[in-house]
């Protein structure tokens, strides 16, 4: 079993890295987690997003979820909001595509055009 002592060490590390980037304005990633999204693989997409963020040590991103937005055939849906840029909605995302969105859009600010279903 993982101990609380290990958890405490991780918390201290997390607090240090949070202090370093105070004042930064982060990006936001929203994943569709309605019944339609979940059935289409949203849980695995969310896991890939979180894993890729962790691997790349990106810590100014908030990952959150939304319910059904009415375009179930496009699920799993991932929305990306970067400060100062318009909101981009990606459709039919899988784990691999999710990782590429983190690498290209979140880390480098380049929209992955092929999978965009709308921008606003």
């Amino acid at each position, binding site marked *: 079993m993982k101990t*609380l002592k290990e958890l405490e060490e991780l918390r201290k590390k997390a607090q240090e890295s949070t202090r370093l980037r105070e004042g930064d304005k982060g990006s936001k990633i929203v*994943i569709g987690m309605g*019944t339609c999204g979940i*059935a289409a693989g949203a849980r695995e997409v*969310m896991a890939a997003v*979180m894993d890729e963020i962790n691997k790349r040590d990106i810590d100014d991103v908030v990952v959150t979820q939304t319910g059904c937005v009415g375009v179930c055939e496009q699920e799993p849906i991932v929305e990306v909001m970067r400060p100062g840029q318009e909101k981009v909605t990606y459709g039919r995302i899988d784990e691999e595509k999710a990782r590429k969105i983190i690498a290209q859009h979140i880390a480098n600010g380049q929209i992955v055009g092929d999978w965009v279903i709308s921008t606003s």
Partner: protein
Amino acid sequence: MRELSLHILDIVQNSIEAGASEVILEINEDPDSDLFEMIIRDNGRGMTPEMVQGVTDPFVTTRTTRKVGLGIPLFHSAAEQAGGDLVVDSEVGKGTTIRANFSYKHIDRAPLGDMVGTILALLGSNPRMELVYRHRYKDKEFEFRTEDIRETLEDIEISHPMILGWIRNHLQDGLAEIYGGERE
């Protein structure tokens, strides 16, 4: 849904949308008495008796973007096709309990699947939710409560990738222990 753990993820989304701050998840697996039971309890706003009565019907939902709510009907039919049943118990202002049981050995019972993934997805996107996850396999039990780690976390959210990493390992270890190498 391919896995029963995906139904859990889906049903808990309903709890969150109903304003629940606390969710209790219980899984009881007892192959010897051919029982597989899942209970999801929340303290959300609850439903009227009329809503409860209609809730396993796909044409009942509070959603406005789409007229058909499929979460509970899908879970219900998953239980029925595997020799079980689903019961919804709810009270306005108090919360909702959904109890689904399956015949453990039924050929049409979907596998439980990735419970750890389901819990991480829930906590990752709902860091303030208090979750109790109690899982029994035969006579062994594992319990995880977000409440127990809040104090250690201080001002760091439970959804922080490093913290989720710790929870992932903790849950994997706990489940491995109750299964004792018997499955998954």
